[in-house]
């Protein structure tokens, strides 16, 4: 079970994931040794699942990000599986989410520019199976992006 110390460490870690353990310990008000031990335990118990590097696609020349929201043709029982499996084969898809609601699946697509996006949309997206409707939201700006939890 988590105690207040775990929660303090997690809150600080989620707020600033790049912190060195010594800084994290200081902000959470624990010794460095305690911080290490707690982090190990949180990772072993699966509370912390992974620490991953963030790749900035804009810095790699992918200036366009579009969120495509799909409604699938659910009369086919294999619609979700086949759609998701085909979407995984599109390299410009950087994220896949499934939902309960009006939208079934959302794909995050990146492209170098609008012309590149148009090509991906026509050749790789519209050809995905079992689509019944698509809506696009184009990203203008990310105002907040945090993994923080109100712990």
């Amino acid at each position, binding site marked *: 079970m988590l105690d207040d110390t775990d929660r303090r460490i997690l809150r600080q870690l989620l707020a600033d994931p790049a912190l060195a353990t010594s800084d994290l310990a200081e902000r959470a008000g624990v010794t460095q040794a305690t911080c290490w031990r707690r982090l190990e335990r949180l990772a072993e118990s699966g509370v912390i699942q992974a620490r991953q590097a*963030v790749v900035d696609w804009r810095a790699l020349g992918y200036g366009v990000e579009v969120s495509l929201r799909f409604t699938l043709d659910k009369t086919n029982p294999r619609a979700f599986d086949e759609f998701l499996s085909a979407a995984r084969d599109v390299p410009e898809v950087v994220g896949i989410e499934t939902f309960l609601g009006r939208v079934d699946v959302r794909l995050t697509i990146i492209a170098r520019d609008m012309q590149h996006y148009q090509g991906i949309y026509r050749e790789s997206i519209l050809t995905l199976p079992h689509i019944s409707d698509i809506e696009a939201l184009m990203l203008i700006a990310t105002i*907040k992006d945090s993994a923080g939890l109100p712990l």
Partner: protein
Amino acid sequence: MIDLDDLDRAFLRDLSRDGTLSAGELGRRHGLSQPAAWRRVKRMEDAGILNGQRVLVDRAALGFGVTVFLGIKLATKGRVSLEDFERAVTAIPEVQVVQHVLGLFDYRLRVVARDIADFERVLRRRIMTLPGVGQVEANVLLTEEARPGPLG
């Protein structure tokens, strides 16, 4: 913008799976010395391609069983209302992500809550009371998957 070769892309693939890999380990995997591997990582950090880390946690184990994406359309638009809305929405602790978008909605929010009842509380007390908020659409997240992207 800098050019990447196949090794750089392999590094990015490895690091976007496990950001804790040391330069020594990356070098061993791809047949480079530790200093050579370190130089490549450093170069991609300096170019802003490697941009910090993210921590993935088991939200349900921490008591946050529900993640909801909200599409929000503002009722009134204008520079002032956008700024007011953005200032107020980013201050809500349950709101993890705020994106300004173009299309059916003006903003996309990612909201975490303990359960559906807690989500309803956040929606009514915090979201619906935001300045200028109009139509709101909610979709409850079932699964999410990060893909490696076009790293060859």
